[in-house]
């Protein structure tokens, strides 16, 4: 425990170094903006801005990106409340009560509650993160290739069991991400693979950023343009510092359910497929269940704004736990952070704690600071953020497209990758319209090379015997949970059918 406090102290000091602190402030502001813009969330901001981080050392870069992640979780609430459309999918539940409050002219109350609740959620989850991360990383040091592979199978199984999307389409998305990762030189034999039409650009492989920026930059903007037709209307918000301080005192109304929702959000956030959106919905449900006045939910209850906001912030911190300790991202955003770490020359996973403690603890320290700074910046500049929401789409869209094109070019400096990115963006958009989930593909392209290496190393060690994954206890447990997760939807279906049959034919359809 004393160890942890000492390391945390040095991490905090590191986060306060001028460069890192500046990165936190810039990241938080950009995150708030990205989060507040309808349709764009943390994942879009992180994907589009990752190429810019080559400017600073890795620790400052991850601090910057984590601050964007953090800010975006706060920012999502701003458009949920003032526009009535979620700024990001993670803020969907915030609309339920945020919108009615805004319509009643109490937008200030909702915005303050969202900010304070986000702070509570953030604080609880960071403390949990600090306590859980070091022991988990130490435990994970024992993992060999077989355990690593089993863990990745488990990560992908969560998408099938908990993702809630069409199962064949989800599996397809995972597999195509893994196949895209195999393009280029084989990591073991060095042979060129899947070099289509002998285009030399494929020899370098497909950088995960090409897929991530394509899908989350170009694809997402096309999707948003279609959804909003480029039009938004803003609710009037009148805010003064006096009001805000008065509203902060309401915290006692929602602190109980908010804390509970934060802890829940943190643990849901650690699961790769679940993450912030379901966590916020679950937290909303929890707050409603435990409320003395559940009927007021959906009509403008402050707790209904606070609960989901606390949970989505907690979940974003939670999703960093498996990324830092196991090298398995807990969300699409952390998948991109993980890919970034590989570009910066770091090997994500348990060794990070021993080999690059300054990186890990700098990141953890920065989370504490970012949490506080986001609260302050958010409360001070709410009116400004609301104003920026009225920025016309015809300015926002071309700016984002340009950042995507330049960001897609920068890592490899080849137009080949930019064309691929455009292709992925359009394909991602078309597939998304048919309910193909795209997040699993991004996770898969990041994990693909690691998964293939651990699979082949395990098989080589066991002379091709696949039982190796079932003979080692940790990998056996992972595989068993993975199987159970895959079977969840099957059982749900059978139970639904049985229930329909039991209810009698007249209710069956």
């Amino acid at each position, binding site marked *: 425990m004393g160890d942890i406090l000492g390391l945390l102290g040095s991490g905090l000091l590191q986060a306060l170094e001028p460069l890192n602190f500046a990165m936190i402030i810039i990241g938080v502001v950009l995150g708030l903006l990205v989060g507040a813009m309808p349709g764009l969330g943390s994942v879009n901001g992180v994907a589009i801005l990752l190429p810019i981080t080559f400017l600073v050392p890795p620790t400052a870069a991850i601090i910057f990106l984590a601050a964007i992640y953090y800010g975006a979780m706060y920012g999502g609430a701003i458009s949920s409340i003032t526009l009535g459309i979620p700024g990001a999918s993670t803020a969907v539940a915030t609309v339920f009560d945020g919108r009615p409050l805004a319509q009643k002219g109490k937008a200030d109350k909702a915005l303050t509650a969202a900010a304070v609740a986000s702070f509570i959620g953030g604080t609880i989850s960071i403390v949990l993160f600090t306590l859980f991360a070091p022991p988990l990383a130490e435990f994970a040091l024992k993992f060999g290739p077989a355990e690593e592979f089993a863990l990745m199978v488990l990560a992908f199984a969560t998408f099938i069991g908990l993702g809630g999307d069409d199962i064949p389409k989800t*599996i397809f998305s995972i597999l195509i991400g893994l196949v895209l990762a195999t393009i280029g030189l084989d990591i073991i034999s060095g042979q060129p693979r899947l070099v289509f039409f002998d285009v030399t650009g494929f020899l370098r492989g497909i950088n995960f950023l090409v897929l991530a920026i394509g899908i989350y930059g170009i694809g997402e903007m096309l999707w948003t343009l279609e959804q909003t037709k480029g039009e938004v209307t803003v609710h009037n918000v009148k805010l003064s510092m006096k009001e805000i301080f008065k509203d902060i005192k309401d915290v006692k109304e929602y602190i109980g359910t908010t804390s509970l929702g934060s802890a829940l959000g943190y643990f849901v956030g650690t699961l790769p497929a679940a993450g912030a959106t379901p966590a916020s919905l679950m937290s909303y449900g929890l707050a409603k269940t435990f409320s003395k006045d559940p009927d007021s939910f959906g009509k403008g209850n402050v707790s209904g704004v606070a609960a989901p906001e606390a949970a989505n912030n907690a979940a974003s911190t939670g999703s960093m736990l498996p990324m830092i300790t196991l090298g398995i991202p807990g969300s699409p955003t952390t998948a991109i952070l993980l890919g970034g770490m590989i570009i910066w020359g770091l090997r994500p996973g348990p060794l990070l704690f021993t080999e690059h403690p300054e990186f890990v603890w700098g990141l953890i320290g920065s989370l504490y600071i970012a949490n506080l700074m986001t609260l302050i910046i958010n409360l001070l500049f709410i009116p400004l953020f609301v104003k920026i929401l009225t920025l016309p789409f015809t300015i926002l869209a071309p700016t984002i497209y340009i950042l995507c094109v330049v960001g897609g070019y920068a890592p490899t400096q080849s137009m080949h990758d930019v064309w691929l990115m455009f292709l992925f963006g359009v394909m991602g958009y078309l597939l998304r319209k048919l309910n193909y989930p795209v997040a699993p593909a991004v996770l898969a392209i990041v994990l693909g090379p690691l998964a293939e290496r651990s699979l082949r190393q395990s098989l080589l060690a066991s002379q091709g015997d696949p039982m190796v994954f079932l003979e080692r206890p940790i990998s056996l447990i992972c595989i068993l949970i993975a199987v159970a997760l895959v079977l969840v939807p099957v059982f749900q279906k059978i139970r639904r059918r049985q229930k329909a049959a039991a209810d009698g034919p007249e209710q069956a359809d």
Partner: protein
Amino acid sequence: MSVRTAELVMAIFLALCSVGLMVKSAELNIGWVPERGPGSGAWPFWLSAGMLLCCLATLYRWFRGITPESRNTSLYMTSDTVVIVGISAGAILFLLAATHWIGLYASLVLFLLFYLKFIGRHSWLVTIALTIGIPIFIFCLFEWALKIPLPKAITEPLFYPIYDLMYS
């Protein structure tokens, strides 16, 4: 085209892609190499085979009408959507194609001019400010701060004086 038709066309297209990937992977060794483990084509081959199975499952579900998309007869893309998405995609396509020819910066100027003035109908002041400001911002960030040269194609000589200033 209805959503229902789009679902079918997409599943067939993806199934064909999966077969293509399987064939391409099979050009390499997809079996066991003694002392070296699975051949380099094995992993992508079996992944593509899995993709094919998923597409076949989607096709089966289409025929049985299980997926909501296979029962949805509304338009896959309304004419509004085609216009708004088509213009954006077309503009990016032009931006990329023109980059090969006149370089990124000149293309950016044309792209922004088109987007801001002809789609956004913003005032000339806003249009010109952004059309000049954004490329300058991109230049400062990437060429100057990050030292990543962006493609300039035939407009390269125009930048020589700036390089002289930057590197002198």
